[in-house]
Every structure is written in structure tokens, then in C-alpha cells.
């Protein structure tokens, strides 16, 4: 299979890559595999590292803007694959799903290829992003239905 130009490190490339990795990280391994079955077949890949499981320290901020603190360690699976001769895809995903980490790494490598990218964005990333947005909206609606308005307490101060 012909490999196209590999994307670089311009600001747009970084933003685009961040977006597809974020979508892949939030999707489940089964969801990614199901979308991939409907996309054009990918060129064969070689495993460069992993998939392997390890721990990373998750950090948090109290209230979202306090001083950072160590929240605790979470399990992370990482994988790096080579696709064709030039593209290298990396994936770090939360959890112990080795298949998901490998699929995300393969997609990361393939999406860096300008020739493969449009087809994969349409077949895999956009449907996953739409499903995730719907899920988030549904959760938000459920939460909104049980919302308590504290405006009366504000008056008492």
C-alpha cells in the first residue's frame, strides 16, 4: 500500500492529533474495533513496544484551580507500533485493555498519514466523537433534571 506524507509538528497537526487521541482514549476497545471493521483495511503494522501495563500518578487540583496534588496511581496500558516505513503511532490508555491500546496506536500511526487520514476520520473518529457527545449530553440532561437551585441560600448571606 502506498503511504502518503507523514504529518509534522505544526500547531494544527498537534491540535488534530490531540483531538483524535482524546476520542480514542474515551472510546472502548470494542467500539474502536467495530468502527475499524467498516473502514478500509489498514496496512500491516509491527509492534515496537508493548502493549504493556504500568502505573502512572494521576494529579488533581482542588476545585480545578488549587495547588496540584497526587490523587493516586492509575493503571495505564501503552503501545507503540510502526506502520509502513515512517509512521510511528503511540497510545497510552487508562485501564488494562491491551487490544484497545494497540488499536489506538495503529490508528494514531495511520491518521498521521495524509493519504489515509480523511477516510479514517470519517469512518472511525467522527462517529466515535458523535456517540461520545450524545452520551455526555444524555448524562448532562439527567443531571439537569435533578438540579437544585441554591439561589435562595445566596440571598440569606
Amino acid at each position, binding site marked *: 500500500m502506498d503511504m502518503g506524507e507523514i504529518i509534522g509538528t505544526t500547531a494544527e497537526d498537534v491540535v488534530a492529533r490531540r483531538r483524535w487521541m482524546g476520542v480514542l482514549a474515551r472510546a472502548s476497545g470494542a467500539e474502536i474495533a467495530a468502527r475499524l471493521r467498516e473502514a478500509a483495511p489498514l496496512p500491516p503494522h509491527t509492534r*515496537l*513496544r508493548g502493549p504493556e501495563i504500568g502505573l502512572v500518578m494521576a494529579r488533581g487540583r482542588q476545585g480545578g484551580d488549587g495547588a496540584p496534588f497526587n490523587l493516586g496511581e492509575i493503571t495505564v496500558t501503552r503501545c*507503540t507500533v*510502526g506502520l509502513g516505513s515512517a509512521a510511528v503511532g503511540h497510545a497510552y490508555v487508562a485501564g488494562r485493555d491491551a487490544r484497545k491500546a494497540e488499536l489506538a496506536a495503529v490508528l494514531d500511526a495511520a491518521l498521521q498519514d495524509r493519504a489515509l487520514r480523511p477516510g479514517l476520520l470519517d469512518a472511525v473518529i467522527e462517529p466515535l466523537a458523535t456517540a461520545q457527545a450524545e452520551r455526555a449530553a444524555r448524562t448532562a440532561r439527567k443531571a439537569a433534571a435533578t438540579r437544585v437551585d441554591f439561589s435562595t441560600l445566596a440571598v440569606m448571606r
Partner: protein
Amino acid sequence: MRAAALSPGLADPVADAQGCFRAVLDAMSRPGSVRRVPADVRPPAPLVPAAAAVLLTLADAATPVWTDAGPDAAAWLAFHAGCPLATSPEDAAFVLACGSPPSLGVLVQGTDEEPHRSATLIAQVAALEAGSGGWRLRGPGIEAEHRLRVSGLPSDFTARWGANRAAFPRGVDLVLCAGREVAALPRTTAIEEG
């Protein structure tokens, strides 16, 4: 920018690294004996499998590595070992020399209180042959003497090694790699030209 072509590291990281560690330990405790690294690894040129396997076994995020092997090999090591790359041999915990090794005196020597904080030189040589001919080795770990023939080191290397020995307990240790074979000389070993 095109990503440098990466090749896989150790096929089974835990078992292979343990096997390589045993090979280096045996080689270091019996100076002059030649061991085979059990790992199947195909590093980018000019790295040989033995040198690559030794570094993947010993180097990690706490040990800066300096190498003259070029950007592809350095990137491969940094990716698979997770080691920082030193900009000069004086700052490195492991020095991998594919060409002529740097002067032993400029490498980290350790201190009299903490001689283990010294650098280890990993030198790629053309061939290693134990048993007959070449250097006569004496010192701890050797009952009478070991013979080791090393091809591909500079001709003044034994003189440089003598100076390294004189600073004991400070000094650097040496690991010699050729193909898949590894031999080691701790700083206590004396070399006599055969």
C-alpha cells in the same frame, strides 16, 4: 519531519533483560570469559546486538547514556531504554563507543567513598576470542590467568587501561561487545600484552 524508522527492542523485556543481566554478571565476575547474550534484538546500525541488549538491560531513566553511534541509534536507545542522552561522555553513566573509545580519564571516575558512581564503557569491537592468545588477564575473579584476544581496539588501549587501574578504587569498568558476544573487564583486572 519524518519519524526515524524504529525497530522493536527486546522481544520479551523481562526474561530477556534477566538473561542479559546474567550474561553481563558472569562476564564481569570472570574477567576475560566470553558470554553470549540470550536476547534476539535487531538494533539500528552501527549497534551490534550484544551492545544493544546490554544497554537495554542496564540503562534506565536514571542513567544518562552517551554514544557516538549516530542519531538513529541514539533515538532507538532513548525510546526503548527510556534513558536520557548525554551531550558529552563526561556526563554519562554509560558510554557506548562504536568507533575509537573516548579517553578513560575523561569519564566519570566515582569517588574514593563512592567508587560505584563511575561510568561504564561499552566498547564495540570487531571480534572477541577467549582461551588462547591475545591479552593475559590477571586479577580478582581469575585463578591464574585468562587469555582474551580482542580485535578492533586502538593499539595504545592497554596503556590507557593501566592508567585507569592506577586510580583504584576510582576508575571505569569495561564491557566489550562483538556481534552477540560480550566480555567484561572490571577496573581490578590487569592486562599484559601476550
